[in-house]
């Protein structure tokens, strides 16, 4: 199942912390699309996700100061 989390306007660490929280509620195999506008988040979320054991499927710049990350929950 694909979930979406919009954290536009959030700076670190809020964008990462909110992503962490949201991932907790997902089932294994679920995907989460995170939409954000803060540059550092494009580095912080993937680094955190890999360390936590989740899959980073895609990090994409979608526009002026806009990005999307697609994660897949791989561990409980």
């Amino acid at each position, binding site marked *: 199942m694909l979930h979406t989390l919009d954290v536009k306007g959030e700076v670190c660490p809020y964008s990462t*912390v909110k992503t962490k929280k949201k991932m907790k509620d997902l089932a294994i195999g679920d995907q989460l699309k995170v939409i954000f506008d803060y*540059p550092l988040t494009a580095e912080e979320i993937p680094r955190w996700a*890999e360390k936590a054991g989740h899959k*980073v499927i895609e990090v994409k710049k979608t526009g002026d100061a806009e990005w999307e990350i697609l994660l897949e929950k791989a561990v409980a």
Partner: protein
Amino acid sequence: MLESLQESFAAMVILGLFTGAAFGFTLQRGRFCMNTAFRDILLTKDFTTFQAYILALLISIVGVNLLVDFGLIESEIKPFNWLANAIGGYLFGIGIVFAGGCGSGTWYRVGEGLVGSMVAVLGFAISAMAASIGKLDFIRKYLRQEDFTIQINDQAPTLHGLVGANKWIVIAVITAALGIWLFRAQRPAHQKGWTWPVTGAVIGLLIVFGWWSSSLVGKAEGITLASTTVSLLSYPTVGIPKPNWGMFMLIGIPLGAFVSARLLGEAKLRGPSEPSRYLKQFGGGLLMGFAAMQSGGCNINQGLTNLSMLSLGSLEVILFIILGNWTMVWFLFLRD
């Protein structure tokens, strides 16, 4: 020629703006913020930005001491106001969590178009002005009095003075120990901006360049963000101080950051959707500005510009900034 430079207003403006713009450009490319650096150690166990800081510190220590030894600038050791440094550093560390960025982080994000950071800078300027030339200056005068100041042989203490060794031996030991740690550090993953070795190296060189460039057109002061923020508010409002290198350097930071962000397609006016967050960032700015006036400088001034002179007082400030930062990060994000 160098003497005529000292008198030249244009040279001051150009050197100031250039130093600041190069610094701001680098901060934005490297996403260099000490709130990030210290917080991530605790929150995500990620050392990437901290490694950039340590590399910048090592390079500025070597470079600044070379400038001193070649007689290009004079060594200036920050006083060891142990009480003011501890209180100011700790409060500053708490403030940067609420403001969403340290002294340098907040200023470069202004150039990215983050309205929350603009609000934080306003808070910073107002309280720092009150605490330095306004009605609250009695607090800093009290905390920084002689009773709470430690001197060794009538001088402000330094790391090499403390261990009683030649400064280059101390520098060699520090560089070797931290250099080995950096060398073994992980190469960065998922980097979109500059990698930490590039960011750290350029920041370190710019700290050295800042000392030199400011010395050409006035008093050598190096890159500093707290007192200069006060000046940018006090000059238009109450007419002091006279325009100086530091004020133009500070104006250059958001300009350089804007250019960098614009080229990367990362510049846009934006901010949090919850109104309360602006108040929080304003409050964080207020706390930072007040705190920086107690501790004698922000994380850049104390953590790089003056720690490069091996001042013990600067080391104390940066350690307390880390402690304050970790206290708040634990309180806000890790408690449960």
